């Protein structure tokens, strides 16, 4: 399954194969840093607003594709809130990987992670930061980095086939 997480409300791009799209449907609440998704209701966010099970969607997908406005080299608040609310894709326990600390797996899948960023004046520094962050995400999810792509506007995204 392909999991698309995007801030585009009327998202209607061509997507091949089985997929699920997470996009703004009413307001998303932001993470409050309580760690309930690790040690109260493991695997699920304690805030029930329709976005509490994104980590399960991540556990079931083989590819995760982010389509987001670029905010200074990272994703937009909607996409970020969805990501923050889904950290229970991994467990709270730490492990060491390539000499660095990361979290233990909860799900056995390997996510191929890519991101498509749009925005009028995405700078070279922002592109570099965006790549570093998405690579970092892939590492933390025990997944594979599958590229970052940049577009000058939402319109330019139109031809995109996912």
């Amino acid at each position, binding site marked *: 399954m392909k999991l698309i997480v995007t801030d585009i409300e009327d998202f209607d791009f061509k997507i091949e194969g089985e997929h699920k799209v997470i996009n703004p449907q009413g307001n998303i609440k932001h993470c409050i840093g309580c760690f309930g998704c690790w*040690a109260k209701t493991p695997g699920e966010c304690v805030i029930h607003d329709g976005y509490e099970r994104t980590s399960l969607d991540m556990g079931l997908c083989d590819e995760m594709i982010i389509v987001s406005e670029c905010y200074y080299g990272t994703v937009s608040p909607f996409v970020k*809130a969805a*990501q923050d609310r889904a950290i229970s894709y991994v467990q709270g326990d*730490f492990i*060491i990987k390539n000499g660095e600390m990361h979290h233990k*797996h909860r799900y056995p899948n390997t996510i191929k992670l890519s991101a498509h960023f749009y925005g009028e004046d995405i700078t070279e520094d*922002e592109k570099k930061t965006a790549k570093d*962050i998405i690579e970092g995400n892939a590492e933390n999810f025990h997944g594979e980095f599958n590229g970052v792509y940049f577009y000058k506007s939402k319109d330019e995204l139109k031809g995109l086939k996912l």
Partner: protein
Amino acid sequence: MTVALINASPKVKGSSSGILLNDLKECLGNKVDVEEICLRTSKITAEIIEKLKKADTWVVAFPLYVDSLPSHLLACLKQLEKMTWKKPNLNIYGIANCGFYEGNQAEPALNVLKNWCAKAGCAYKGSLGIGGGGAIAVSGNMSGKNSLRANIYKAMKKFADRIVKKEGEANKYATVAFPRFIYKIAAQNSWRKMIKANGGKTKDLNKRLDVELTDTSVNKRIVYEQ
């Protein structure tokens, strides 16, 4: 000179960001005036703006969330980018603390703050990236100087001096004053305590929403480095 100490952790109390800002406040002493601000939601209120306006330097302290900034802070920065009352050449410093042991895992997130400065017309002056945030959170009632925050406190002292002189430097990284394997075990214990306090069992910690709890084959297949 007025420094705004901005706590962008969404936690209402007991945040590591708050503890680190207290250390910074102590290090700044009476050399500067301080405005303390909390950014806990996605909206910059009129009250926050009034406080920010007084400052010629902002220190933004935040937790690392998924290798980046918490979503509400991104929303706040977007609003602040466009606000025209900001002083020209406002100095921006950051303090990113992260759950992982290595403070430099916060580097890309600090670059987001740096990129924001470029768009907002502010002067990025360098930051502290701090590891071991989980331990910092439980050390709030200890003095920074000679506790598990000792190394961090040393870095904070230098950081405070730079802030007073309005000096810029490359980001610096620090972590808690005990070995990584102890931090790892302490974290493990704290999750087990917390799940039990919440009425659950240790084995619930690796619960998957798609299979029965008894299927632990996933965890058995993976061998981790020590």
